[in-house]
């Protein structure tokens, strides 16, 4: 579903992604974890065609980026910490708008289904600006799946949610991802991500530092695996720097 080879992204002279290789098979749920500034959001923005790679090959759902960006966008849904919703429109109108942009043909029934999925049917005609942060994020999931995408990219979806809203988001995400979708999710919340993902990749200094399947997580858990990966990466970076000197 996703193939990335030697991906480089620079902002000016500053490299953020440094020759990143990454592959996701259809139906996999990959948790992408890493410290702040590791390049997670930049990477997801490239996968979602919002940003152009500086170098390297990126293939999503069988299409090359950035050349076939429109075809890629048709097969993916994106959820970030910003809901990408219009406050002056109702939940129903927001979904109608996005559904029309994606050319969803049976839109009315799809909107009802999606609102039911995210538990907002009763408030479908309320303005989104009257929603709590948690409700907006639930509606945002509805927006992301309105066109039934094969691939979901979730960038820090739990940011700003309280425990209850987070738990509700868990339930909805499990339901959404149980329908055979491929998912790549970034999060700092290792407890939540360990509950959802089937594979975990650690992104550090613009490269995948380590990767493991859920069943191969060492005894000290995901946190231990994460710390070990980051420390190893830091040591190898120091060694590389020393060699250069």
């Amino acid at each position, binding site marked *: 579903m996703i193939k990335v080879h030697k991906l480089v992204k620079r902002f000016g002279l500053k490299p953020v992604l440094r020759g990143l290789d990454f592959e996701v098979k259809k139906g996999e749920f990959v948790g992408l974890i890493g410290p702040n500034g590791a390049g997670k959001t930049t990477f997801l923005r490239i996968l979602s065609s919002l940003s152009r790679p500086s170098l390297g090959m990126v293939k999503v759902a069988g299409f090359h980026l950035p050349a076939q960006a*429109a075809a890629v966008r048709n097969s993916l849904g994106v959820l970030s910490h910003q809901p990408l919703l219009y406050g002056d429109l109702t939940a129903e109108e927001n979904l109608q708008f996005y559904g029309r942009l994606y050319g969803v043909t049976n839109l009315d029934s799809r909107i009802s289904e999606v609102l039911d999925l995210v538990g907002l049917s009763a408030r479908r005609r309320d303005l989104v600006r009257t929603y709590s942060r948690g409700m907006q994020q639930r509606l945002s999931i509805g927006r992301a799946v309105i066109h039934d995408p094969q691939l979901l990219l979730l960038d820090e979806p739990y940011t700003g949610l309280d425990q209850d809203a987070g738990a509700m988001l868990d339930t909805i995400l499990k339901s959404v991802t149980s329908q055979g979708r491929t998912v790549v999710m970034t999060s700092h919340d290792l407890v939540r991500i360990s509950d959802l993902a089937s594979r975990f990749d650690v992104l550090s200094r613009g490269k995948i530092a380590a990767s493991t399947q859920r069943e191969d997580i060492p005894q000290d858990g995901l946190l231990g695996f994460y710390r070990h990966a980051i420390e190893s990466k830091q040591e190898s970076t120091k060694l590389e720097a020393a060699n250069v000197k």
Partner: protein
Amino acid sequence: MSNEIKAHVRVSNQRPTFWRAVSAIVRKDLASERRSRELFSAMAMFALLVILIFNFALEMDAGTRASVTSGVLWVTFSFAGTLGLNRSMAVEKDRGCLDGLLLAPVDRSVIYFGKAIGNLLFMFVVEAFVLPIYTIFYNINVFHPGLILVIILGSIGYVALGTMLAAMVVQARTRDILLPIILFPVMLPLIIAAVKASSAFLQGLDMEFIWPSLNILISFDLIFIGLSYMLFDFVVEE
């Protein structure tokens, strides 16, 4: 909440046609504005203030009024229009919705045309609000078919270029200041031609004096609609 979807609706996506996607954006902007009235109230209030300030500041006799009418009219439209252009793109950026638009599987020029048509409609509404007030304050009948044509052509050019530049500066922190600074110099040929054509129509001059200005307006519209269509993708690219 029912998370178990008993009958999963079969979703079939057909990439929307160009104009269907454009109309989705225009309808969204109109629905949003109908609720908030942010753009209309700001633009109309600003236009009203400009008319009042010129009316009382210049203390004009009837003859002077006739000669400065078109100039004051286009200053009013330009300043009010800038407010609208700034706001319409800022709304998308501030709520993160610009990314939502950019993620849609449509040509990026769809976004340009959707926003431009929405801006043009708002501008027409404000102009329709301004013209009767103008007629009353300046005691000049501005409901002349020729003048209406100039206003339509001038507004199309203004919005065609303005929407493009507003998208260009929307990422900047100082976008409110930046837009007028880069917009007005580029807009100068359009405003001069619009003022000349408006003035000629109000003075009842022959068409041979008006055609050069009308030609500039038509050319400006076509050039900047074409340029924006080709370049918008690069403008919104990160």
